[in-house]
């Protein structure tokens, strides 16, 4: 490889990737068509597992919710890696950090709301029959 070519490769490596842009070459496992097929297969398996976990009685019932949440997060990961081509490479740092900030806000909104509303619900004074009748 000539000096110029190697320098071009270095430049290519250092450029930031656009979100969803595929920079992996075809001969790698997660690249090109094989990457999409692999992601599609994994997503199908995880979806089937979710539907089975919700309907089967093989799993201890109170654990079903955890199983479903874990399966959903795993499938989101599969989508991010194989369909949106998010990597841990230095060219993807901006995209991953933006996603991490989004996930932080989502977690604050969802967990915070559920937490606060559950407390309010528990601490609410019980309603008398008369009050219940006055409800709109």
């Amino acid at each position, binding site marked *: 490889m000539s000096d110029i070519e190697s320098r071009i490769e270095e*430049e290519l490596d250092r*450029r*930031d990737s656009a979100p969803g*842009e595929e920079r992996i070459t075809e001969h790698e496992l997660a690249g090109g068509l094989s990457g999409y097929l692999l992601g599609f297969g994994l997503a199908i398996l995880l979806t089937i597992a979710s539907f089975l976990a919700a309907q089967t009685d093989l799993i201890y019932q109170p654990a079903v919710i955890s199983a479903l949440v874990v399966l959903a997060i795993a499938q989101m990961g599969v989508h991010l890696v194989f369909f949106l081509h998010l990597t841990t490479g230095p060219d993807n740092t*901006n995209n991953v950090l933006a996603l991490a900030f989004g996930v932080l*806000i*989502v977690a604050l909104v969802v967990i915070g709301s559920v937490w606060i509303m559950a407390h309010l619900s528990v601490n609410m004074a019980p309603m008398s029959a008369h009050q219940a009748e006055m409800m709109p």
Partner: protein
Amino acid sequence: MTDVTAGSAIREPYRPGQSGAHGHGLFSATGHGKGGPASKFVTAAYGFWIFLLSDIIMFSAFFASFAVLSQATAGGPTGKELFEFPRIAAQTGLLLTSSFTGGLATLATHRRSIAATQFWLLVTGLLGAGFLFLEVQEFATMASEQAGPSRSAFLSAFFALVGCHGTHVGLGLLWLGTMMAQLWVKGFRPDLLRRLHCFGLFWHALDIIWIAIFTLVYLLGASP
């Protein structure tokens, strides 16, 4: 090394900061202060990525209100009575396959094949339309069974969350049709490649939101 990205083959000769010293159609700008600003492909896609993340944050507010109100059925029908597993499985399959064929369309744009791109975009659109049809059918059935959005807080939250996702899919289909028409008339122009890439991001993000909906709303709502 063969670079198969959509952006890499686009020459933007009048972009400031691009030296163009080597005529391989590569970006010379690294986005790290050397050689000028990042290319338009990167900035447009990144801006759209920020929009998608704020869209997901908006969805998280709907998810939070659904989680809070999911038990507030006011004596009306519960999720267990309303949700049909076969329909949800079909919807999930349609949207997941549509996301996959959307990826195949992206691969076809890398090959610069108009026919393959149009074909996979059409398949993506048809699968998305099938998903939307099933959802509208479900909403219509529920409304006819006195389980419309005004019945209980649970149903208000349900229609707001799932309806918001359905609206996104519908708008995505309109966008898809526009893209197909533009591709038909204008071919692979750099601006069109950027829009197609953003559409791909949008479609994959919608499928990620659907994962959360079918897990948290349908499977958890219908399981014992």
